[in-house]
């Protein structure tokens, strides 16, 4: 074999003669980007991404067609090369039209793969849907009931009819798994030996403990209350999150193997120094915000005047309170709505929310405001309480003095100040007053120890914690959730705690943090106004499923849950409404990858704005979206059967196709190799409907279970689901080829018909009934032993399978030959 010696990026490389520069570079692990390369089949319309600078040549050279010659000196990433590549990418990106991530996904604070779990629901894969949610949110039972649903506000379905009821779907999968008692079998990393103390057993603490445990650390939760759940249990009344749901949620998390210490109040029962002394490697503070901002008007020390958090805690503890006939709730936040609705359920006939601004300005989610109103809560707006000192009349226990308010001039941010209307005093006679004016984590300073005193607290009563790293002012102590951010939604507490857990992991392991999601995104339109309605051609109106709920006159009589949850049919119908905006080629798109690698800012250089071609779903296995095609031609050239044609009516001045046609011929055997070779999401496998995003995806190399060829496959696994099968072009015997069964024939793994439990037939002619393993084994052992005793070993036989492994076949015949003592062993396909 003759060789050539050349220099690439200053490294001397000896290579086989006859190879291209691209091939030589690849073998030397020097990455040269390309979008159109197929081994041995150069493109007619090359992407020109693989250009390199060759010394002595004026022009940049395409490394995929330039042979490596002796003495060449090559630069693969000089400035000229990079600039050229960036220009090429910008040109190709300019006409690439689609969404990388769906708007719902981008809007979710938890960056949950919304489109993904909806797709699982549409396929009936509820268990996997829940696993996907729980990758990023370990408290789906609660969030599915109380989430503010940022995602639904951006759902593109709004442009057709109504947004998809995303949150109800999340609740559905959680409830379905609970009803069916599914063990999610979520795995965790090998033990690290690190121990983390988590202070607070609410959503933030549970989340942090969950992620830390998954990372292999030993987490211990210290909770002040006698039960875990925090705000989920004590902050939300039972009609929103029933206690049994909280119990199930908490147990699901604890099943991971988390230590708990209940009724341990920080600052009283233990200090940070105590925890350090106990050998914890890091501490997470997730105590929430449970200290009410005081109701700062005169005479609030009277009986029958409560603050919100304390009040809800008493309600949830089932305390017997005399609340009278009428009540006022001061404040317009979410907690105020729950207080008001709880008062109704406690038999208070008239509940009035007093708020100094307009209704739309209430910090509460408007959905919560509407629900309160529907149940009969009244609103006294543009009114501010001034005191409780006045003497009530004989019908009431308290008299709430009020000042009416008006709006002043807008400030710099456009928010209008509120001003009291002079001499507008009025009053409201009530029996109970509950103030809900916001929450703090700590009132003043933390006490209880030296380290506690070093903890910096913000003026608003929250712990100072770096929003990126979650670090507090004390080393090794982190904070997240409401304790750091102030009172926010559950999902926001989860996000904050997850981020903190990631930082704690990096801190105790002395390693890099898991990277944050890249914000790079192709989009069909950022705002609704930017989205072309052509996207929705042919999609008919199909209104959302209505959540079944108990009518207000009934539901306000008790604390039972108001919303009853979707049925399975409703959930599937609702899931089918999803427009599937996000790209299911997300994890394999070369165009996106190179745009990111080479810092191409498509927001400046441009991207496709509207669809030119309809999406073609006529192929039985492959969906074609020509709007995403960059005309690299890899599909056509990779086809082993010459069954695919890509052509254009003409080529524009920048070399891009006009009038693009991607055509499968009749003799296509649906092997799917073209999809594996597609450089974008223009070709996609029909059954690949779950986008694989930044969360963990595992690639498992294995051998195909069909014919005897023994093709090597790569299984792409997400959760417990096989998402896709591909092949490595460098692996024998199939070198990247697979047949239709290899790429598309494995859905049976997660088919609902799978046997999931042993069955026995107790009497001939009777039915097969499900039993536990121990019973099935007993039954079988008894029957076989009795045959063995009566008729001898040769009355037993085994039939093995050519599908089973070598090891299983060996063990099977060994059982019969050595255990039973017979040679009655065969397999059905030995011929």
């Amino acid at each position, binding site marked *: 074999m003759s060789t050539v010696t050349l220099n690439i990026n200053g490294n001397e490389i000896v290579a086989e003669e006859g190879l291209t520069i691209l091939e030589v570079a690849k073998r030397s692990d020097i990455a040269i980007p390309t979008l159109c390369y197929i081994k041995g089949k150069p493109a007619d319309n090359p992407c020109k991404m693989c250009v390199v600078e060759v010394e002595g040549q004026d022009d940049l050279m395409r490394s995929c067609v330039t042979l490596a010659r002796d003495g060449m000196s090559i630069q693969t990433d000089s400035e000229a090369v990079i600039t050229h590549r960036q220009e090429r990418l910008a040109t190709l990106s300019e006409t690439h039209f689609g969404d990388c991530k769906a708007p719902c996904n981008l809007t979710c604070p938890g960056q949950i793969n919304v489109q993904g779990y909806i797709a699982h629901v549409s396929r009936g894969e509820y268990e996997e849907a829940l696993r996907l949610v729980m990758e990023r949110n370990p408290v789906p039972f609660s969030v599915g009931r109380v989430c503010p649903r940022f995602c639904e506000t951006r759902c593109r379905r709004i442009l057709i009819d109504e947004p998809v009821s995303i949150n109800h779907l999340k609740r559905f999968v959680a409830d379905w798994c609970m009803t069916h008692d599914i063990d999610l079998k979520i795995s965790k990393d090998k033990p690290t030996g690190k121990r983390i103390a988590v202070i607070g057993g609410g959503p933030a603490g549970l989340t942090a403990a969950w992620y830390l445990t998954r990372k292999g650390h030993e987490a211990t939760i210290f909770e002040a209350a006698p039960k875990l759940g925090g705000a989920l249990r004590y902050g939300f009344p039972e009609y929103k999150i029933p206690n049994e749901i909280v119990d199930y949620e908490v147990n699901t998390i604890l099943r991971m193997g988390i230590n708990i210490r209940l009724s341990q109040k920080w600052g009283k029962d233990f200090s940070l120094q105590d925890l350090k002394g106990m050998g914890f490697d890091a501490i997470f503070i997730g105590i929430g915000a449970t200290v009410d901002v005081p109701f700062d008007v005169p005479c609030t020390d009277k009986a029958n005047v409560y603050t919100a958090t304390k009040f809800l805690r008493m309600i949830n503890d089932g305390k017997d309170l005399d609340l009278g006939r009428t009540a006022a709730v001061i404040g317009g936040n979410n907690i105020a709505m729950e207080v008001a609705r709880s008062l109704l359920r406690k038999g208070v006939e008239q509940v009035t929310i007093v708020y100094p601004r307009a209704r739309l300005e209430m910090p509460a989610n408007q959905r919560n405001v509407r629900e309160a109103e529907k149940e009969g809560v009244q609103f006294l707006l543009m009114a501010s309480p001034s005191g409780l000192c006045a003497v009530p009349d004989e019908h009431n226990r308290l008299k709430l003095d009020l000042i009416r308010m008006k709006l002043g001039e807008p400030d710099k941010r456009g928010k209008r100040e509120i001003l009291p209307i002079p001499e507008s005093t009025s009053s409201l006679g009530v029996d109970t007053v509950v103030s809900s004016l916001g929450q703090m984590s700590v009132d003043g300073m933390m006490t209880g120890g030296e380290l506690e005193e070093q903890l910096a607290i913000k003026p608003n009563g929250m712990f100072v914690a770096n929003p990126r790293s979650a670090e507090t002012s004390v080393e090794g102590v982190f904070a997240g959730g409401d304790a750091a951010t102030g009172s926010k939604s559950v999902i926001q507490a989860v996000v904050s705690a997850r981020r903190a857990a990631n930082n704690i992991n990096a801190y105790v392991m002395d390693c890099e943090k898991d990277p944050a999601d890249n914000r790079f995104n192709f989009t069909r339109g950022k705002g609704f106004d930017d989205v072309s309605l052509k996207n929705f051609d042919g999609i008919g109106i199909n209104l959302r499923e209505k959540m079944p709920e108990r009518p207000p006159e009934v539901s306000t009589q008790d604390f039972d849950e108001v919303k009853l949850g979707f049925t399975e049919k409703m959930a599937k119908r609702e899931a089918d409404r999803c427009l599937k905006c996000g790209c299911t080629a997300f994890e394999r798109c070369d165009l996106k990858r190179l745009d990111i690698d080479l810092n191409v800012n498509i927001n400046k250089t441009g991207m496709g704005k509207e669809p030119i071609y309809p999406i073609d779903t006529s192929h039985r296995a492959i969906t074609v979206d020509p709007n995403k095609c960059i005309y690299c031609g890899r599909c056509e050239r990779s086809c082993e059967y010459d069954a695919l044609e890509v052509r254009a009516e003409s080529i524009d001045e920048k070399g891009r196709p006009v009038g693009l046609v991607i055509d499968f011929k009749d003799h296509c055997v649906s092997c799917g190799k073209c999809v594996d070779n597609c450089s974008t999401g223009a070709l996609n496998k029909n059954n690949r409907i779950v986008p694989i995003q930044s969360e963990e995806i595992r690639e498992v190399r294995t*051998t195909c279970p069909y014919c005897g060829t023994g093709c090597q496959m790569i299984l792409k696994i997400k959760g417990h689901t096989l998402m896709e099968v591909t092949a490595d072009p460098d692996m024998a015997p199939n070198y990247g080829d697979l047949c239709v*069964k290899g790429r598309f024939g494995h859905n049976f793994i997660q088919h609902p018909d799978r046997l999931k439990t042993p069955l026995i037939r107790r009497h001939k002619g009777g039915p097969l009934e499900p039993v536990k393993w121990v019973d099935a084994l007993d039954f079988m052992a008894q029957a076989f032993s009795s045959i063995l005793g009566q008729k001898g070993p040769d009355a037993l036989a085994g039939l093995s399978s050519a599908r089973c492994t070598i090891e299983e076949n060996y063990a099977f015949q060994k059982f019969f030959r050595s255990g039973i003592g017979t040679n009655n062993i065969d397999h059905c396909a030995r011929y």
Partner: protein
Amino acid sequence: MTGLVTVLGSGAMTNTINGILDSDVMLVIGSNTTETHPIIGLRMLAAAKNGSKLIVADPRRIKLCDSADHWMQQRPGTDGALINALCHVILRDGLEDKEYIAERAENFDAFKESIADCTPELAEKITGVSESVIEEAAHTFAKGKAAGIYYTMGITQHTSGTDNVYALANLAVITGNLGKAGAGLNPLRGQNNVQGSSDMGCLPHFFPGYQKWDDEAAKAKFAELWETPVSDKLGLMATEMPDAINEGKLAGLWIMGENPILSDPNSDHARKAFEKLDCLVVQDIFLTETAEIADVVLPAASFAEKDGTFANTERKVQRVRRAVPPPGDARDDLSIINMVSNRMLGNRKGGFQGASDPIYHTVPPFAGEVFTEITKCWVAMAGMSYERIEEQGLAWPCPDTDHPGTPILHENGFPRGKAWLSAVTWNGPAELPDEEYPFVLTTGRVLYQYHTGTMTRRSEVLEASAPSAYVEMHPADAESLKVNDQEMVRASSRRGSIDLAVRITDRVSKGLVFVPFHYKEASVNLLTNDALDPKCKIPEAKVCAIQITKIDV
């Protein structure tokens, strides 16, 4: 397999899949390769494109015929006569590899004598392939520097299946095509681990590694390894089991991962027998037709839910890796065997071993440990380990840890010394068409389905591509039956009948019909013949006589 072991001393594909690209000539007989082994089919088409000569022998006009230099459309069940005629022409015209025969074969004279009568003239009468085509194909085959033979069930699933394999071995030996790249005698295995389950002695007459059941040294070796005496009696073959049940000799049967009620010829016979068992245990991933009549059903794992190895058709042992846990309470098959073993055999070794982990519930010994035990009992795998096959599999024989494996067998001789040239007297199929049952039925696979469809029929793309059973029929036959394309007919044999749609095509010749065997709603094995090959007890699934009548709707 029996055929190859007898004449060569080893029963497996001699060469490699990618070696097809090195061949000058390919003889594909009884294998619809592009449908049953699509990737091997691709290599054949690529080789043909590069100038390798392709000879196809198949009763149907399969896809490979379009690229073939010679197509021999033999009548079903006449392969032996055809192959003998090829050998006859080669010897007649002096095209054999005399040096090779002298060095590496024995019994040549008797063999030559045995095929003296197998003239192309006679073969034309039996097979329907014209004399000139036989002669041309024989010449092309013999003149190739490297000529490979590729066959599957089309050769073996006959009452004369073993003889057919002998005949092919003769052809390979007299042309010197064993022991070099691009050549060889290559049975293409229909299932992922047929090779491995045979290798592991899931055969009544062989211990693992083809060590004979009655060989005293082998018996002593396994008795020592397993610390228990082994049986002195020959076991039953799968196809003998139904009769043994009917005779009351067999009372308990454990079936792991097979669905014989649907896949076996004359399947009704098997069903009735299984129903008489005292205890039928079926271990599978779905409630198959066989599982439905079982007394115990054990929920098992799919390939993606277990660790282990498969041996492919090239004898290459490759890793299978667990990617997901089995659903619900299902367990991987090895753990099930271990559980049953622990429970039944009184925990002979080390007491009861519970599940070792909360997600997979595996019960030891694990796959890696079993593999190590295997390497101790069969020298051909002695040099293998999971570490060595982590990246690429190894083809046996691989006798020691430095050995690179053996992609091409017989480069330096045969395990039995010299190859035995067998005198093959060809027998026709057990059942021939007559007035009452005028059609010859042959069966096979389609690309989109697999075996009894338990897996493929639950994968949307595959099922959508080939959703229902059909019978391929020649246009002239369709006309005489007055049926149109897609119309329903009833196909009946002496053993049963099924209803299915007609597909009119000239892929089959007049008088021949083809039905894929994947569909339980029209299970063609209700029709097929369970007459067995006397040597290896393979049933004649590939040919039987049937009648076809139009169903009036």
